[in-house]
């Protein structure tokens, strides 16, 4: 990053700095504004939204939409559970399995390593498509409508595996592995107590991308668990946007919302509840996210 302040740039004329900063400020507003609009709606009265439309700043501030969602909270809490559980389990298992798959391919004394790399690489080139995949997960391994449907199908990525392989090949010194072997350490011991700890950067990167994908996934849920019993956050939100009745099954609630039963506003509130964990973690994860993007773009 130091090179950004190299000598030639100090000559930037003032007008130029002002122009690009103005442009980026406007664009930042275009990136952040929409979320604020959603937040504003979620804190508005339903009747205000229906009469005067979506606004950044609520006409009458209320937490009705959130009270409504939490009042019908069972599905919401279940959805949180499904999302959190599948994100943690899928990411943890996926990262370990991918690392275990990638490590042998990085060892120069492992002769068939290129064949296995190709086995992984081919999955990136040719994709069987949705229909055979659907048949596999409904008939061969019948995990339809189980929590495994949210975890298993997107656990491994060919690209991530090869990213790990390259990292291991470049960062695990052969001499260290050899001397550990001479000292009698087993391959498993070397993998778990030396290779994995030495590879934290790549494990964090892959884990982060995988976790974001799990957190944001609604497609696997919609394709493989659509009987309405298992809903992760995104799929519940999707179903609510199609039909608010999904969450409003209690006729008594109407009385407690004089501003109208939250409908449009409840959707927006639900979106905010889904985004909050990511928004809170964003400052922590964005450094790793940027690093991961850059690492991924440097071809292996």
């Amino acid at each position, binding site marked *: 990053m130091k090179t950004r302040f190299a000598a030639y740039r100090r000559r930037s004329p003032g007008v130029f700095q002002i122009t690009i*900063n103005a442009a980026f400020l406007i664009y930042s507003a275009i*990136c952040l504004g929409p979320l604020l609009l959603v937040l504003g709606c979620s804190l508005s009265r339903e009747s205000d939204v229906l009469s005067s439309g979506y606004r950044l700043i609520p006409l009458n501030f209320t937490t009705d939409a959130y009270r409504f969602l939490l009042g019908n909270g069972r599905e919401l809490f279940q959805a949180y559970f499904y999302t959190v559980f599948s994100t943690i389990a899928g990411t943890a298992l996926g990262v370990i399995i991918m690392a275990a798959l990638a490590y042998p391919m990085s060892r120069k004394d492992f*002769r068939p390593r290129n064949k296995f790399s190709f086995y992984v*690489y081919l999955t990136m080139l040719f994709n069987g498509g949705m229909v055979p995949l659907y048949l596999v997960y409904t008939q*061969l391994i019948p995990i339809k409508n189980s929590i495994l449907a949210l975890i298993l199908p997107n656990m491994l990525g060919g690209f991530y595996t090869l990213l790990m392989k390259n990292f291991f090949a470049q960062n695990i010194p052969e001499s260290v592995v050899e001397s550990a072997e001479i000292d009698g350490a087993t391959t498993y011991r070397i993998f778990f107590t030396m290779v994995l700890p030495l590879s934290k950067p790549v494990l964090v990167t892959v884990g982060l991308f995988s976790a974001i994908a799990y957190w944001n996934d609604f497609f696997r849920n919609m394709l493989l668990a659509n009987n309405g019993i298992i809903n992760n956050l995104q799929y519940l*939100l999707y179903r609510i946007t199609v039909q608010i009745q999904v969450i409003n099954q209690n006729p008594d609630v109407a009385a407690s919302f004089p501003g109208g039963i939250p409908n449009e506003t409840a959707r927006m509130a639900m979106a905010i509840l889904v985004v909050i964990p990511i928004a809170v973690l964003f400052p922590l994860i964005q450094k790793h996210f940027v690093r991961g993007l850059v690492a991924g773009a440097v071809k292996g």
Partner: protein
Amino acid sequence: MKNNQGFLYELKKHRALYILMFPGLLLMFINNYIPMLGTVIAFKRITYGKNFFETYIKSPFVGLKNFEFFLKTNYALIITRNTVLFNLAFIVIGLILAVTAAICLNEVLSKKLFKFYQSSMILPNMLSWVIISLIVYSFIADKGFINSLLTSFGGKESIQFYNETKYWPFIIIAVQAWYFLGTSAVIYLSTITGINPELYESAVMDGANKWQQVWAITIPMLRSTMIFMVMVSLGNLFVGNFGLFYNVPRESGLLFDVTNVIDTYVYRSLIQTGDIEMAAAASFYQSVVGFVIVLVSNSIIRLVSKEDAVF
């Protein structure tokens, strides 16, 4: 025979390595290789059996019948057109915007503002397409932000965005560009920061202005990254971004003409209308053409400049 012994010897010598790889190899076999073989279903009339194998055995071969039917529907043309044209637009517009944004971002002197801009631009990429769909909705719904603005400035009627196809090519392209601009810009930016500053210093000595520096140094240095990024996108020319095309138009049937892509068509045929043969044909067509495109685009790159080829 000797080969076989060699394999067994190898297996024994590196037993632990094979055991480590086993779960991953197995999962990839199930998740990727069986579906690859399973694409043969596109040549069969599908009859569900009790299990996977029975389904495949019981379904009779019908040759190219499924494809004939698929090509006879006018969907084949529409979904191919939408998928390919949108992707081409994404590639060209995405490339121009991301390179421009990266070059400009690199010129921001204040470190704090630089970080702020970068974070804001990445943020959309953290959101799911379900959320993006709601965000778009809050802008273009009947009572949405845009219509509120229009009516408050004296517009007579609100625009029914979800009923009119003419707005959607722009909406889709704008949303996609907005979603990915930050992450692509970061990738280009990392190449720019890696450029040797001496190049610029000597250019300044020679009297080059900023514009000339960008054209003579920055853009040529970005060439490899640009080729790589375009290659990756070209490989996905036949893949429609399901999240985008399924969620953002909110499944408005009136818009299918411009928003239905191969992936959404396959899903709808498979799950909603139960035309599993159509789905299988479309998905096979997508896989094969996609694979050919990856191979062709890579060999073109190889001809043009060998070191930029991905494989």
